[in-house]
């Protein structure tokens, strides 16, 4: 059963943060254990699938894939861990390519190509169709976790009611 209403602001922030760190953890903490497990599985599964097909170097990289990274950051705990691994792989690839930092694709196409070649030789890069599937899965997982975070915050502030509870009630009354 959901916990009783108390200081909802602190509770909402804590539930949101927990969900950001680990999908479903906010719901679990609020007492919605079943929903917590469901949210954990429904976000973790696509995230790990995307990571498996994309490879951590190219799929979680704020320098080479910044828009995807922005979506992924919705699942903050996973993305932080993956970004750290990605950074260490990137350093390894840069050393192999004889570069000091990831070159800008538009300004230094030759250097960028040698970076890509070094990453491909190491077996860290994914290309079409794997990269497409990875992008869609990772972006969806990150954005789904934003929904999970908002739901955890809503449940924390209303004492356990779902995000669209008011809208559902209004629709039911209208019918």
């Amino acid at each position, binding site marked *: 059963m959901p916990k009783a209403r108390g200081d909802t602001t602190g509770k909402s922030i804590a539930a949101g943060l927990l969900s950001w760190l680990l999908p479903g953890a906010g719901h679990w903490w609020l007492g*919605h*254990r*079943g*929903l917590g*497990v*469901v*949210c954990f*599985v*429904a*976000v973790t*599964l*696509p995230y*790990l*699938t995307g*990571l*498996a*097909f*994309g*490879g*951590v*170097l*190219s*799929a979680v990289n704020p320098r080479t894939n910044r828009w995807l990274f922005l979506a992924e950051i919705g699942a903050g705990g996973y993305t932080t861990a*993956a970004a750290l*691994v990605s950074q260490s*792989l990137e350093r390894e690839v840069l050393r192999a390519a004889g570069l000091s930092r990831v070159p800008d694709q538009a300004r230094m196409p030759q250097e960028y190509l040698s970076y890509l070649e070094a990453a491909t030789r190491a*077996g*860290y*890069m*994914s290309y079409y*169709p*794997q*990269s*497409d*599937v*990875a992008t*869609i*899965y990772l972006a*969806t*997982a990150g954005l*789904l976790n934003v*929904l*999970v975070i*908002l*739901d955890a915050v809503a449940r924390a502030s209303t004492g*356990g*009611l*779902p*995000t*669209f509870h008011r809208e*559902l009630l209004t629709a039911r009354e209208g019918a």
Partner: protein
Amino acid sequence: MKLLLGLLFVHPLELPSGARLWMLLPLVACVATVYRATRARSARELPRATIITFIQIVVGMVAIAAAFYLVHLAARHYF
């Protein structure tokens, strides 16, 4: 463990040929689950609602794909 994680997430897996389209289904299942979870009072309400939403999304996407295919056929026929 480190080797397994390395195999899984450091070196990207190959997608079997023809599997790309089928990858839609697990993703739709996850989207339907989270969407329904944000509207449910408890996990017990989820299975039926999730299955209905899953079917609605898949049917909707197939309908959109069929419509685009017809537009494509018409464009090839008339232009």
